[in-house]
């Protein structure tokens, strides 16, 4: 049975590595190194190549979980990682100064991929900073003429991350 490949993307610190580690059935492959730029104020390490984990459905279907580096300077890795992918999970850190810009940037850069597949959006840290709200995100997407399921999630919570995957699978099945 061919492995399904899902890609996690989003800005640095949004929880991509954590989300994959939360649901992967084996310790994920990580390429984290020390941050040497402003990001180090937020976190000590950053992903520079990819994260890789895996989860198996009850029917035996394996889903490969690939995390991208968040910084746009690693766009070459984004282009590599989406090859063969079936869906995109965009995690947005609500604490960032301009989360809509973050979202727009990732949707724009992955637009071709999303057109062929599908995407879901997980908003993290909305419990720490409650604006913009989920409704604001929906309005923003509507203005862009894009409709994607959006949820507030905690990347450390297995049910939350699985729910994103479930939703993405559902979207793919029904599209």
């Amino acid at each position: 049975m061919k492995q399904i490949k899902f890609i996690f993307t989003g800005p640095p610190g949004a929880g991509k590595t954590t989300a994959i580690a939360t649901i992967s059935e084996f310790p994920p492959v990580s390429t984290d190194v020390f941050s040497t730029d402003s990001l180090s104020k937020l976190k000590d390490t950053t992903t520079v190549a990819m994260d890789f984990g895996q989860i198996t459905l009850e029917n035996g279907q394996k889903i490969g979980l690939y995390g991208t580096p968040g910084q746009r300077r690693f766009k070459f890795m984004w282009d590599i990682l989406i090859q063969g992918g079936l869906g995109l999970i965009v995690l947005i850190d609500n604490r960032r100064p301009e989360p809509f810009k973050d979202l727009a940037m990732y949707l724009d850069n992955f637009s071709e991929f999303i057109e062929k597949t599908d995407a879901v959006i997980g908003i993290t840290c909305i419990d720490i900073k409650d604006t913009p709200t989920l409704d604001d995100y929906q309005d923003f997407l509507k203005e862009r003429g894009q409709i994607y399921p959006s949820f507030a999630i905690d990347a450390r919570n297995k049910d939350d991350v699985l729910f994103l995957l479930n939703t993405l699978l559902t979207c793919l099945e029904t599209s």
Partner: protein
Amino acid sequence: MKIKKGKLAAFFGFKSQNQEESTEQKSLPVTDKPIDFGEDIHTEQPAVIDSAIADSKATEPVAINSENLLEPSTEIEEKTVEVEEKATVADPLEVEATNTEFKMATPEPTMDYEHEEEHLIVNYSKEQLAVSEEKLEEFMRVCPGAYGVLISTVDGHELLYLVKRDIPVHKISTMNSSLLALGESIARESSQKLCQFVILENSDGRVVSLRINDILMLTCISSKDTNLGMLLSVGRNTAGDLMKILS
């Protein structure tokens, strides 16, 4: 379409979904205040000297002395960057000196959206950088086929480099940081220990990447005029020297 959480749960049954999860709560960095990556913070660019870019056929590295390095008009006295909340605003540096064939590097202007955390926090003195630069020059002298040597951070920012050809240093720094991290991960997954080199063997040259220390790496780019053994040996020695200088 807004799908409320819970409606689609268990639509596809994950093995673990119906079980009581013992979720490992890995702590995420939490701050009490909104994170500001400081879009308005502009610090000086990394101390990168791009020598001889104009002359792709040069056979010898263009000497860059400390006078060049500290050229007042280039405003690179504070070449190393220390990010502070109230860093001073500096104009983008793009200084090209006639006849000296060096210029300050700038980040590639490809960002349509600037949220990059490009401001290095590593802080090295002018003396450290000058001595490091001498080591790079020495590397180029000893390896006649070498046409590029770069010191960059492990997360992909170039710090100091010397090149004889017009190569995209910023891209190479970033891509090699990914490559080295992947190499180290593959070594770990293969139950092997310290990854010493990541070697790209190409039809007309080689690219060798290795760590200097926890936060810095060295990339050596050479034609086949220098054999691999020599490149690895000199690269290792240079990295060892740089480790001492930039400790």
